[in-house]
């Protein structure tokens, strides 16, 4: 039983998975290389696998040919849940896919398909929510900054959406929980990790005005006769409100 340490993202994980398949490993264990140090008492030897783009792409086309695009997307979303033990589940899921082919999609009640689908659905819902919940503010002339604290690692899933949407300004979406950010420089975006705020970001004058206007609009949008805070909380759970300007105002 070997342990495979992979570089943090989904590509890295797939490379480690391919390495375990090549070794014919029957019971591999996967760890992020940042967590590799904390080895258990009975853990096997550690095998560092570098992320290689070609390996990932080759595995992707193999899996898509065997099963489907949707099933691959499901695996990717599930990976971004960042849940403990997700690698093990995914390993079983991807192997089952290669073995069963198209049948995988109908095996909705069978483990690990059931769990992977459920987790992936959860992540994709959160990713969709954050397409709406990101709040940019202008910190210096023309530069937009947004902070978020999602449960899953949705940043790589939503960044392309914002590239298409706000294409006329450089921006940064900062995931405080994972200390990483998606940064867009008007041409392309990339993921930068290890980002920490040293001070509260600034705020241009126009920013204050528009935030205040938005808060007013938000208050007046509600119809008093239909007051329903329970429904509101169902859609905007309290944990998200910290970073939503309309909920933080006076």
């Amino acid at each position, binding site marked *: 039983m070997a342990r495979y340490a992979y570089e943090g993202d989904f590509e890295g994980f797939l490379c480690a998975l391919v390495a375990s398949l090549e070794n014919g490993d029957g019971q591999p264990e996967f760890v992020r290389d940042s967590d590799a140090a904390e080895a258990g008492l009975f853990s096997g030897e550690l095998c560092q696998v570098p992320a290689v783009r070609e390996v990932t792409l080759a595995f992707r086309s193999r899996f898509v040919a065997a099963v489907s695009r949707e099933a691959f997307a499901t695996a990717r979303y599930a990976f971004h849940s960042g849940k403990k033990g997700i690698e093990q589940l995914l390993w079983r899921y991807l192997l089952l896919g290669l073995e069963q082919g198209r049948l995988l*999609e*109908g095996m909705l009640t069978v483990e690990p398909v059931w769990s992977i689908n459920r987790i992936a659905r959860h992540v994709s819902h959160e990713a969709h929510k954050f397409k709406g919940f*990101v709040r940019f503010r202008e910190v210096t002339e023309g530069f937009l900054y947004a902070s978020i604290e999602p449960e899953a690692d949705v940043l790589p899933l939503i960044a392309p959406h914002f590239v298409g949407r706000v*294409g006329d300004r450089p921006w940064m979406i900062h995931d405080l929980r994972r200390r990483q950010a998606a940064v867009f420089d008007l041409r392309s975006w990339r993921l930068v990790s290890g980002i920490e705020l040293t001070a509260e970001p600034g705020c241009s004058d126009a920013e204050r005005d528009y935030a205040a206007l938005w808060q*007013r*609009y*938000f208050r*007046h949008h*509600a119809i008093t006769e239909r*007051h329903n805070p329970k429904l509101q909380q169902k859609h905007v759970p309290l944990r998200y409100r910290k970073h939503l300007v309309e909920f933080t105002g006076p």
Partner: protein
Amino acid sequence: MFSLPLEQRLEVLADSAKYDVSCSSSGSSRAGKAGALGSTAASGICHSWSADGRCISLLKILLTNACIYDCAYCLNRRSNDIPRAAFTPDEVVALTMNFYRRNYIEGLFLSTGVLRSADYTMEQLIAVARRLREVERFNGYIHLKLVPGADPLLVARAGRYADRLSINIELPSSRSLALLAPDKPRESVIAPMRQVSGLIVESRADRKESRKAPRFAPAGQSTQLIVGATPESDREIITLSEGLYRSLELKRVYYSAFIPVSSDNRLPALPTPPLLREHRLYQADWLLRFYGFAAHELLDEAHPNLDMRFDPKSDWALRNLQLFPVEVNRADYEVLLRVPGVGVRSARRIVQARRGTRLGEVELRKLGVVLKRARYFLTAGGRYLGGIRLDGPQLIERLLAPARRPARLDQLELFAALPDLSAVSGEL
């Protein structure tokens, strides 16, 4: 009308616009352009939810709330004493661009009171949309309201800039319309709808020929009906909606529970808005659009109104018990859709999963099928999941049971003044 500061005018014009319930930003799928602002997502995206639980997707405002008409149900009618305000086109453009860039909104919903004439007002709306598209290169969602009685040429121009067009019927029958909105003949609402529907079909055909053909309202058109202000039955309303969906291919009909915004003696005095009725109408509307139901199946002369106790599908199933139970492992997709408690998602999953395995109660639960109501209408592998014999009155009681169980919210007294027998027998 421009004397108030911008923030107060925003409040006034947001207040005046909020009773229009249309909120969706879906139906249009346009990728972003490099170096420009905006894209649209087919699913639509909600950005926030206000204290009444309604989503905020578009910046919903009026250009002005001054109006020459005097429709009894409308907040902005001429005779109502409310503050009046207006935006300049520049202000609307700046608000939209800046809110959008900060990702507060998904686009603009622009409506207005009628100034001078229908044509003049329509031109004002189009001017704002044109500036957003052509000067600011705004590529996000725009929903424009059509002004009843506006020139067909203006309607055709509006659709070049907008993703969605809408014109509100408001009252389900011409009788009510004549009573409450004497300035708006029904034909002035229906004619533009018919025109828009034709133009949408035309532009869709053109775009099949050539991708360069201009789009016309790619997200279709919608309308709104007010519920509870006039005596129409649910049957009239749902039959009207069905006609609109079938012949004019509307994307949505919205229902708005009537909230008394005036003390006009032509209107009923309602203590609270009929929210449950509105909810039931939406349920019936979904059955028309996604579940293959026809209006006459849900409501007929003997049942002109929806049952407030059940959802319309359960109500239909209870009246058609001879069709049930159905076998989950064999029933067609269309039949599964008609089982109370089974939605589009569940029905699809059932069809997908049963190819590989036989479904029993456990599997159904794993698929996420909610059996609370569905169990009384299903067999799985020949076994009836309901546990009781199917007969009307008993089943109604079962289906209603959860709602009737009284919630015990007060703390139990240790020494109640009178001995409560139920506390002894355990039947709390």
